[in-house]
């Protein structure tokens, strides 16, 4: 334990102390290494989980893959660092990873005091409750006095306190390190309920021995815009991550998919042409080549493809698009124009 603590301190302190220049040019660094180092969670189905062939897949993983496709020309050139909620920001600050894409909520404090920047939102979420079915609870308002299994170092912990205080209720939180431990605590009946971002509740339920023994309550008690994070002070890298995501989302809006990307290169639509790089010089403005966004769509797919494959109807999670639908389809997913 001592050594682990020392490790954190060394990572947090000395690395910051000596590696001050490393943050300046993440792009050069990534090109030199030949891969993007991506911080993900330790295994949440749909967001980041190694599949049977030990390939990481998920909606968070796709953000890193998109950046690798844009920068290195190959979406496969990503290495993954699984991180618990507690470890994630230190890992990014100390330069251990280039992007943190780990269902991380964009909040004021995180954005302003950690020396980090949020590059956008890849999933709009909210906090929900998973309750042991045998208790017969129908609403979160009935949870006074309940024990809650929860993961350390998350916004979830704070929202929970706020919600219970606001409703004049008491709770007992049992705090675990990883999502697997949290789930096991809940399954061993240590807690009456488990709380986390709603998307992760569905994901955790797929991992349970008896998924039908637990129900998700209707209440959503918070806003959790989840998105990738980069170090503050490296504007070029920040722009690359932000616009890789925007290209990914805009591709859906323009109807460009991994299947038709080649054909769409011949499109007359000026928006499509700019995105696919057949006109303009948007790639150069990022310090990349002009086919950057074409490679994202070709290799990773557009946002809708990623969504459906990982968390949507063609995945075990079966989450509906809901607020994550495009702005012109009833949702709030909205990317600034590519021009």
């Amino acid at each position, binding site marked *: *334990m*001592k050594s682990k*603590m*020392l490790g*954190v*301190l060394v990572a*947090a*302190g*000395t690395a*910051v*102390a*000596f590696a*001050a220049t490393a*943050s300046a040019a993440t792009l050069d660094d990534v090109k030199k290494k030949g891969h993007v180092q991506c911080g993900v969670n330790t295994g949440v189905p749909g967001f980041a989980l190694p599949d049977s062939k030990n390939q990481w897949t998920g909606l968070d993983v796709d953000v890193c893959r998109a950046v690798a496709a844009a920068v290195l020309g190959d979406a496969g050139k990503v290495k993954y660092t699984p991180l618990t*909620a*507690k470890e994630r*920001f*230190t890992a990014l*600050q100390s330069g251990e990873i280039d992007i943190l894409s780990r269902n991380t909520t964009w909040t004021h*404090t*995180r954005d*302003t*005091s*950690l*020396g980090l920047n949020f590059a956008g939102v890849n999933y709009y979420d909210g906090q929900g409750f998973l309750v042991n079915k045998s*208790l017969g609870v129908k609403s979160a308002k*009935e*949870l*006074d*006095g*309940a*024990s809650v*299994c929860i993961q*350390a*170092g*998350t916004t979830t*912990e*704070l929202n*929970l*306190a*706020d919600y219970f*205080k606001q409703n004049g209720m008491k*709770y*007992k*939180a*049992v*705090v*675990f*390190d990883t999502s697997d*431990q949290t789930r*096991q*605590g809940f399954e*061993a*009946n*240590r807690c*009456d309920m488990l709380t986390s971002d709603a998307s992760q509740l569905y994901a955790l339920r797929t991992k349970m021995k008896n998924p039908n023994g637990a129900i998700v309550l209707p209440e959503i008690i918070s806003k959790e815009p989840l998105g990738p994070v980069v*170090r*503050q*002070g490296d504007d070029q890298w920040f722009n690359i991550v932000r616009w890789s995501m925007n290209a990914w989302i805009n591709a859906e809006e323009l109807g460009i998919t991994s299947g038709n990307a080649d054909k769409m290169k011949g499109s007359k639509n000026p928006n499509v042409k700019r995105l696919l790089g057949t006109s303009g010089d948007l790639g150069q403005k990022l310090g990349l080549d002009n086919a950057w966004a074409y490679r994202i769509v070709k290799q990773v797919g557009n946002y809708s493809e990623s969504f459906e494959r990982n968390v949507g109807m063609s995945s075990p999670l079966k989450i509906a698009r809901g607020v994550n639908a495009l702005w012109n389809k009833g949702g709030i997913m909205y990317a600034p124009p590519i021009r």
Partner: protein
Amino acid sequence: MADHQTDQNGTAPSKPPPWNDPVIRSIAFQIVAVILVGYFFYYILNNTLSNMESRGITTGFKFLDTEAGFGILMSLIEYDESHTYGRTFLVGLLNTLMVSVLGIILATIIGFIVGIMRLSNNWLISKIATVYIEVLRNIPLLLQIFFWYIAVLQALPGPRQSMRIGDSFFLNNRGLYSPRPIFEDGFGMVVIAIVIAIAAIVYIKRWAHRRQEITGEQFPVFWTSLGLLIVLPGLAFLVTGMPLSWEYSELKRFSFGGGMRIIPEMMALLWALTMYTAAFIAEIVRSGIQAVSHGQTEAARALGLRNGPTLRLIIIPQAMRVIIPPLTSQYLNLTKNSSLATAIGYPDLVSVFMGTTLNQTGQAVEIVAMTMAVYLTISLSISFVMNWYNRKMALVER
């Protein structure tokens, strides 16, 4: 140097110039070394702080006064979400100290018993001790903690099917519940009575010892002490009109409320730490006892001492000299191992402060440094106490 030590003329050795005096020289070198090390740390710290500032990372200890906003499962002092991050530090620290102290006491008791069992002439007893030691020492502690935690949770019924003793004690997978004493006015008298009883016992013990040395007569110290401890506070309790009441736990919608509670995380962690460390202590005790020459036992026998007193009066005191140094490092290990608590959700310092608080505030350098300082202080205090005890027990050459 050699010549002034072997000065044979009997005249006082001539004083060497200061730069050649080994004492002065070594002091000078040490001062220079301290200054260099100090400067090194100052440089690192300064560099870190200014780099963090230039990267927009908040630094400093102001966060300790900010409202924490999260709940903690178990606290020995008053705590809720509206308290500060500074308070979370205290809560975590006390929880760490509590398992460590209890763990050290229990592991010592069990370790001594098992260590002595291992040396027993009874085949079965010594084999049981051997198996215990070999199994527990060779399984990683983290696994044992998980095992006990899951075992505890699986073995215990849900709140509604609690095991119970009357209406006062309940045991279920949310914890062990007992009534909470509520002290009313006048209870101070009882406390004073206890203090007086203890003082009297100490005095009687000394007096009886002296009398036995002079006259050879024995005095029933144990029974007298027990009597004093019960009668004096008991009288005070009755006289002040029984100023004590109990708050009972009762079943609420989800679980029990009120009363006192020991959480399962605490039971599992304490049990795992105790059993694991006791296995090591048992081996230390065994080797300590074996280090005492067999002649001592024979001499005790020759004096007509039975087994028990031989062990207590002759063997153990001598064995202690061998036992204490490695015992100290077991105590240090137990304290540091208690930080594995995070894995099962016991709210110790590492979980509460270096976990949740760190993540909510993001001030890694300050928080990790504080946590390390705490462990360092605890370790140094244990070493200090044990070294003092060691010196006391050391063989006094006459």
